[in-house]
């Protein structure tokens, strides 16, 4: 079906997130205002004003009441989804990159970039039921990995935190003590910057995308490499279909070298792969620039992509898609 073009951001997209019901789509971009859309028809519902820098990622609570965003203005903010009011601001010494609510939404993991002498860090914050009781204190701070940590998410039962970033290694930390429990084998791990990380619906496995032009599927508990998907472009964004055994990879040439070449050189396609056979099944073109963000609707019947070109494209699948056989 024809994609719905959602124009609301003025700068490249950075992150996309559906709520649990799949009726709302939250988008983050390098302009300072995260936006919420109707996930069905792409109508803009509202924006969250208050950040003073690029917004790198967001997460929405299970009940769709709270939104958390991480921004380059060295803060992470809690919002009331419905009213757009700021509930709390967590201030840091360096830009906040990735945010993720735990199971039960009582904790949030936030990563911060290395900046002006500060090393990168993973912070765990307690999220209070009542916003008035909210404090900025960290329950736990983990430091260690070199370079930016592009994504950190909760493992099963909030017992672990999984992180991946510029140093190409995926690490699993104990979320109570901050101890390093496991790290990915150098032999099989990514060779370049890990740009994205997406969990499966049940959290049992996750997919990482990297500038080494591949995406890899890992077991969350043992950190065993299960699958590798190779493509022709650096991978900026990954997503897994909750419905079918498909994965989607998005990316493209570096934004800086795009303008020097023909538009065909970039291959700004969202590529679909068979999750089990690791074979490419198709591609969705359209963005005029690399794809920076991908998200599947929880019902698996539509997905959206966000590009360097500032557009969000919302794709509802044709009936044919559900009968692909290879």
């Amino acid at each position, binding site marked *: 079906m024809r994609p719905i073009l959602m124009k609301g951001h003025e700068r490249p997209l950075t992150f996309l997130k559906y709520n649990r019901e799949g009726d709302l789509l939250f988008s983050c971009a390098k302009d300072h205002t995260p936006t919420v859309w109707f996930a069905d028809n792409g109508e803009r519902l509202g924006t969250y004003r208050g950040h003073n820098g690029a917004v790198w990622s967001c997460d929405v609570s299970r009940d769709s009441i709270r939104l958390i965003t991480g921004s380059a203005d060295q803060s992470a903010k809690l919002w009331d989804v419905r009213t757009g009011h700021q509930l709390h601001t967590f201030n840091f010494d360096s830009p906040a990159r990735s945010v993720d609510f735990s199971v039960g939404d009582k904790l949030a993991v936030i990563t911060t970039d290395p900046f002006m002498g500060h090393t990168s860090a993973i912070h765990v914050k307690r999220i209070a039921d009542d916003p008035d009781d909210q404090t900025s204190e960290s329950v736990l701070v983990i430091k260690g990995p070199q370079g930016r940590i592009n994504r950190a998410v909760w493992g099963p*039962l909030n017992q672990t935190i999984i992180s991946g970033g510029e140093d190409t290694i995926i690490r699993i930390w104990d979320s109570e003590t901050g101890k390093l429990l496991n790290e990915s084998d150098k032999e099989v791990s990514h060779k370049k910057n890990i740009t994205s990380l997406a969990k499966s619906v049940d959290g049992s496995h996750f997919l990482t995308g990297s500038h080494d032009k591949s995406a890899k599927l890992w077991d969350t508990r043992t950190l065993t490499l299960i699958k590798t998907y190779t493509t022709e472009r650096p991978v900026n964004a990954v997503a897994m279909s*909750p419905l079918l055994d498909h994965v989607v990879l998005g990316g493209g040439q570096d934004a800086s070298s795009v303008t020097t070449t*023909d538009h065909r*050189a970039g291959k700004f396609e969202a590529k679909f792969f068979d999750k089990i*056979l*690791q074979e490419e099944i198709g591609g969705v073109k359209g963005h005029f620039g690399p794809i920076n963000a991908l998200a599947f609707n929880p019902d698996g019947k539509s997905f959206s992509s966000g590009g360097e070109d500032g557009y969000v494209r919302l794709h509802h699948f044709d009936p044919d898609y559900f009968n692909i056989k290879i």
Partner: protein
Amino acid sequence: MADVMLMKEIDDTAASLGIDLSQIDFDSIRLPPGEDFGIKSDDEDVYRDENLEFDSGFGNIIVVDNLPVVPREKFEKLEGVVRKIYSQISVIKDDGFWMPVDPETKKTLGYCFIEYNTPQEAELAKEKTHGYKLDRSHIFAVSMFDDFDRFMKVPDEWAPPEVKPYTPGENLQQWLTDDKARDQFVIRAGSDTEVLWNDARQLKADLVYKRAYWTESFVQWSPLGTYLATIHRQGAAIWGGGSTFNRLMRYAHPQVRLIDFSPGEKYLVTCSCHETSNPLDANRVVINFFDVRTGKVMRDFKGTTHDFPLGPGGLPKWPAFSWGGGKGDKYFARMGKNLISVYETETFSLIDKKSVRVENVMDFSWSPTDPILSLFVPELGGGNQPARVSLIQIPSKEELRQKNLFSVSDCKMYWQSNGDYLAVKVDRYTKTKKSTYTGFELFRIKERDIPIEVLELENKNDKIIAFAWEPKGHRFAVIHGEAPKLDISFYSMRGANNTGRISKLTTLKGKNANALFWSPAGRFIIFAGLKTQNGTLEFYNVDELETMASGEHFMCTDIEWDPTGRYVATSVTSVHEMENGFNIWSFNGKLLYRVMRDHFFQFLWRPRPPSFLSPEKEEEIAKNLKKYSKKYEAEDQDVSLLLSEQEREKRRMLKEEWDKWVSEWKRLHEEEKLARQLLRDGEASDEEEEYEAKEVEVEEVLSSHEEVLEYDQE
């Protein structure tokens, strides 16, 4: 900086030793090299310089013997004379001159040591002054310092050489016996060099041998495909063998930059270019001719860049010597000023001990099969003496044919691969001399008296973009016109009805192509728009005069047919960073498979030696192709069946493996269910994890209206 001494301490030490510091000229103090008496210099450059010296070793030193033995009074005079001789060749290093003196007689010993900055300079000095006559009784004997060790080891008595038992060599042509008749190719990407089979049936490349840092700059196949040559700092090496690649021979040539095989791969020519320490001097060029099998140097040429003009990249124009006389590797030639030097490989010396004198010769080329040279001489004397193209027979140096040409600006010669025809592209001035137009002179070498035909394009002002002979054939293709609208014309030397006259076969108008690639088997040709034209490809059948397919390999930089003409490789090499890799196409333009590799430098098909089949036999096979192809078609079928079987099996395995993971995850997920509910304050629903695609039927009333039907009651 360690241990800085305070000035006061120095004064104190000096005073205690009774030295008046103000009386000492510090510059006159010289410490033996490599010794600092525990005092570290605070000048860091000194350290760096010293390191450099260690690197050079004794290779820079020559020993000059047979000098006059002189008493002390004449020492300085002799030193002056010797220094003068040797500093003419190159700059002698500071303290690089040492003439020992007999401590008893105070006379010199009749030899001295001279050190230069580089081994190349030392080598040059040795060459130039060995045998130099200072006077009648003093003829210099010059040797390298490093050679002394070698000379000392020569045993005094002759011992018969040990007879080594015969060890059968490997079959160097084993790759030709592949039962699937596949071809090999070599690629270089990043630091890896890989040799692969082109397994077109299975649509993939199959690795034969892979090695990191196999070569330091590039690799090259020998012309018959027997060897793969690699380039290293110390020289070149060749590799080959049965199942894998072993090093067969090494050819020592420090800093070798360029190599070239003779067409019959008997000889390997290597070239290096060295900078001299004097920036005004021309760079030195060393060219060695090696026997490929024994590794012996057959002949070397040393000269400067005046003798070997530079081509692109600051290296001598390559090949500096061109091989002729067909596969026998009998002759090679080089153009000099007003002469062409032709050497023969029996003695590695000039034929008849002298070069062929041709005033003002501009260009020459060999027939690919016969010992015939074609050469081009431009107009002389402001048009009084016409330009000419001549054919010269070697070794008789007899002129076979000559053609005078008027108002010529430039000539290019193109030989057909069998040496049957020679096309000379002639650029002539128009009458006003303001512009040029192009025509062709076509020589029929194999016919009596070598008749020449003149061919002019229909539109005389068209520029010629590319010209290519059909390999082993009688046709040629020309791209002409003004970019971007170019035309491609085909001509045949046999004429339409074998009339023996040149005739045009067809002209294709408005093509977007700037390069021509004939299949090595003839008949098929690819028009390609390389580089600026984004890599458009058109596969054309010249027998039927029809386009078989068009394709595109975006940003393609190189195209190479495999030696059999069955497949084509198009590649994007690392001239730019993107899209690096190669595509393999069938001869009729079907894309078979593609491989992407970062930092992709080279793609080379392994050449095949010429077929042993006679032309009659080949024709017979072509006629009865159906009969012969049956067997291979059956094989193809088997392979594809096997492939799909394997594929099914593989998929089944993957599926099973995946199902195992999923059931494990389900179990764990179930186990953790209670704990998860607790984390959610007892919220029981875990349902979001199991989305089900339910089909819901919804009936909607779109519209309704009533109609009264008349009912006839009768």
